[in-house]
């Protein structure tokens, strides 16, 4: 029996959110205020989300940020689709951080989830939601499947209907005689045409339809095509302005040194060595950090490095990586599970006569996001108001958190959301220590200050993917059929309500045991589907080999007949040439994981070189996200996700010693480079027509188990702990 998709907690959080959020969405003054904020003279605002200028330029306001995943261009495609807009005149802007621009689509997406549509958000994101409504969160791979579907398409369709009504009135013909194309209302019978720009102002005064009619997928002209991403030209000539690049008149630059042990406090620091550095102007103490302000970053960083601050360890000096795993092992056997999922009587299955028990234990380390742009935030406090420049995943929440840190009203905070150099989950404002630091710094200085985190600080003070371990057991009957399956996993986050178990088994149980270290664990691209996906797809592979059966066929036996999963798996096997002979020493591994409503199967071909280094020759990925909006960009997301996942599997690991992070920079936290990346990553999409799934995250989880399964096929050695590192050297 497949695992139930929705947990009680999930529903509870959604209902709690709906009440508050519904009010905001229905709040007409917030909506009108939002329209007023972005619509200039000569433009017509059809909602906060879409405006049309007299020259036919259509601008959409995205409630979600685009930190590289290409969602802004895809959202424009979805609006243009329903609007029948001229693509050359589509523009996208980041929505201002105002309540009227709260991401209502998230609510609608949650409600549809409650109604049974396949859509998942990690518990960590839900927790953030529950605390921060109204919100503009980007997360859970929701920009397109929620924001695109429920805002851009419906608002585009509504605007088109008003343009048709206005066109009918102007031309004196029934609406049914009119069509729309390339931002024009067309009366074919008379050959008359009206540009959107000339009738938009009047059309926008008409009443918005309650239920705008959206197009049938068969008639799509923009969705499913791959126009060039709008953000790319500025990213090839150096003109794109990231948070790191903000420059203001009279601005100073600051660097920071935080307590090396998370939870530790600053005891004392002698300012003088920093103040002796040329260009340094002041030293600012905070509860758990010391900051140096200077004319430029180099002087500030030299100043920080000249200091010898004393920090305490907050009582966490005994925390280290091996002790965490040992404690997790203890909890798994001695503690009570905090969450359960599954069906059937696993205990009875395990106790039955004539079953063979197979078991395996797996361990996964803390993983860092390592976005390429280290944190930078600029703030200027004057006249009782504060203005900030930063790019984070939820602009509305940033404004609230800035107001809170400054002790100011929300209205006294101005936020400029900048372009972001990656994120992968690291830019949830609630996890960003830099907000309070930059605000307090600005309030201590008579000029604007840009605070830059060195890479060492960025790497050592992350919101890591949690350290996790699991013990899996299964019973096989005499025909090697799985009769029972149990996964006892230990980590800070529950995966329930988020991760999906694809296999149909007579008895299955997943139990979450809670462990929290001194680290502030955070969502990391694909979140808990990474850990659970690795456990599931490693263990089913072990069972296949224990049964002496082909790992692809063995999985197939337990996937529901005619399901999307089985089609994805079959296609991955077919396209990868599963079963065909490989060169000596090369193995194939397969894995399938559903996350955020998208099903992905990946096949990896890999070998181990003489010196024990794993070598990846090829990856084949098959993706069913329902419908692909921009295939070329979606391909890039899947390829990039696979490279990121392989990087993690091969060599990434954050370890703790005496409570502090051991790694410091890319020297000891190695990221995948071109030479080690697979030379071929073939991506194939299945447009199943199912409810839209995410695309930014779901390519990640299958890659690590597909790789370790391939290495097992190649060498006979099973990797149960990541990273692989030097495990083939021994």
């Amino acid at each position, binding site marked *: 029996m497949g695992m139930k998709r929705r947990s009680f907690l999930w529903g509870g959080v959604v209902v709690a959110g709906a009440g508050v959020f519904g009010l905001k969405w229905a709040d007409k003054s917030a909506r009108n205020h939002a329209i007023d904020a972005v619509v200039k003279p000569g433009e017509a605002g059809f909602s906060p989300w879409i405006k049309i200028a007299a020259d036919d330029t259509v601008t959409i306001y995205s409630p979600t940020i685009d*930190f*590289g*995943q*290409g969602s802004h261009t895809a959202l424009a495609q979805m609006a243009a689709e329903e609007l029948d807009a001229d693509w050359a005149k589509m523009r996208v802007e980041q929505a201002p951080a105002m309540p009227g621009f709260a991401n209502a689509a998230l609510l609608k997406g949650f409600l549809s989830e409650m109604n049974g549509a396949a859509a998942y958000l990690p518990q960590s994101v839900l927790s953030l939601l529950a605390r921060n409504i109204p919100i503009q969160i980007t997360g859970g791979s929701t920009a397109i499947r929620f924001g695109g579907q429920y805002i851009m398409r419906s608002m585009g369709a509504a605007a088109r209907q008003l343009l048709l009504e206005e066109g009918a009135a102007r031309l004196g013909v029934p609406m049914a005689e009119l069509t729309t194309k390339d931002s024009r209302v067309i009366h074919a019978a008379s050959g008359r045409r009206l540009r959107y720009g000339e009738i938009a102002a009047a059309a926008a005064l008409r009443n918005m339809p309650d239920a705008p009619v959206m197009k049938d997928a068969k008639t799509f002209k923009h969705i499913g095509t791959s126009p*060039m*991403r709008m*953000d*790319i030209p*500025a*990213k*090839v*000539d*150096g003109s*794109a*302005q*990231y948070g*790191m*690049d903000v*420059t203001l008149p009279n601005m100073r*630059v600051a660097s920071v040194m935080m307590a090396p042990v998370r939870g530790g406090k600053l005891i004392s620091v002698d300012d003088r060595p920093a103040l002796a550095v040329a*260009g340094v102007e002041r030293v600012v103490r905070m509860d758990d950090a010391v900051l140096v302000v200077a004319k*430029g*970053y*180099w*002087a500030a*960083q030299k100043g920080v490095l000249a200091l010898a601050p004393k920090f305490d360890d907050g009582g966490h000096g005994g925390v280290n990586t091996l002790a965490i795993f040992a404690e997790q092992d203890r909890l798994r056997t001695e503690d009570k599970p905090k969450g359960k999922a599954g069906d059937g009587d696993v205990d009875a299955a395990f106790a039955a006569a004539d079953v063979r028990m197979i078991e395996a234990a797996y361990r996964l380390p803390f993983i860092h996001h*390592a*976005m*390429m*742009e*280290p944190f930078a935030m600029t703030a200027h406090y004057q006249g009782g108001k504060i203005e900030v420049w930063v790019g984070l995943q939820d602009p509305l929440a940033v404004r609230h958190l800035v107001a809170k840190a400054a002790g100011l009203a929300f209205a006294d905070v101005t936020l400029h959301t900048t*372009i*972001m*150099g*990656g994120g*992968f989950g690291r830019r949830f404002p609630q996890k960003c220590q830099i907000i309070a630091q930059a605000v307090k710094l600005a309030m201590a200085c008579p000029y604007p200050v840009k605070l*830059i985190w*060195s*890479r*060492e600080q960025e790497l050592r003070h992350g919101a890591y993917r949690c350290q996790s371990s699991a013990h899996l057991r299964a019973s096989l009957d005499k025909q090697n059929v799985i009769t029972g399956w149990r996964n006892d996993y230990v980590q800070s986050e529950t995966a329930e309500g988020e991760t999906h178990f694809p296999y149909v088994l007579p008895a299955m149980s997943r139990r979450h045991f809670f462990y929290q270290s001194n680290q502030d664990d955070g969502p990391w691209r694909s979140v808990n589907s990474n850990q659970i996906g690795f456990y599931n797809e490693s263990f089913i592979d072990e069972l296949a080999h224990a049964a002496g059966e082909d790992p692809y066929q063995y999985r197939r036996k337990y996937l529901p007949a005619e399901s999307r999963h089985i089609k994805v798996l079959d296609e991955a096997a077919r396209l990868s040439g599963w079963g065909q002979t490989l060169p000596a020493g090369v193995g194939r591994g397969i894995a399938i994981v559903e996350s955020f409503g998208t099903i992905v199967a990946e096949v990896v071909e890999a070998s181990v070189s003489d010196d024990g280094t794993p070598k990846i020759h090829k990856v084949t990925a098959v993706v069913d996200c329902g419908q692909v909006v921009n295939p*070329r*960009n979606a391909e*890039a997301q899947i*390829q*990039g*996700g*696979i*490279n*990121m996942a392989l990087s993690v599997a091969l060599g990434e690991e954050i370890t703790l010693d005496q409570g502090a992070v051991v790694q410091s*920079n*890319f*020297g000891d936290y190695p*990221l*995948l*480079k*071109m*030479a080690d*990346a697979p030379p*071929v*990553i073939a991506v194939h999409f299945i447009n199943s027509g199912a409810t839209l799934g995410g695309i930014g995250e779901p390519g990640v989880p299958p890659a690590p188990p597909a790789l370790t399964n391939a290495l097992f096929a190649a060498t006979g050695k099973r990797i149960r702990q990541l990273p692989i590192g030097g495990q083939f050297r021994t």
Partner: protein
Amino acid sequence: MAIAATVNGKDVAFNGEADMPLLWALREELGLTGTKFGCGIAACGACSVHVDGQITRSCSLPIGAVAGKNITTIEGLKGADGTLHAVQRAWIDAQVPQCGYCQSGQIMAAVALIERHGQPTKAQIDAAMTNICRCGTYPRIREAILAATDQAAGEA
């Protein structure tokens, strides 16, 4: 004591301390923010520029060492009339960037590679393109380098 050099064809004088890395002099003194800070230890390549034609990680080169040198940054790749360099055009055509933060450095590394080898082989690309991209755009970086050098995908 100002340090004289040439940046993107213009004579400049750096006024910072001699130990200041070129990266910060470019970004904060000249306002050329296209060259990025990524790691500060020459490990990631986001700060890559050309110094006398050589690909160089500017976060680890003090300005005291660039006196009289000819420096080119991402802002200097365009032609005098503003047309993009062939490699920049290839980057757009292949839709390489995602977050884009590392791409100035990637493009500078690719231009240096192509200037040296003309039509680089796969081994030459792997050896030269050691810049980190966390978004994992490597397949398209390779595609763009091949396209910019008139090589079909899979040829190198």
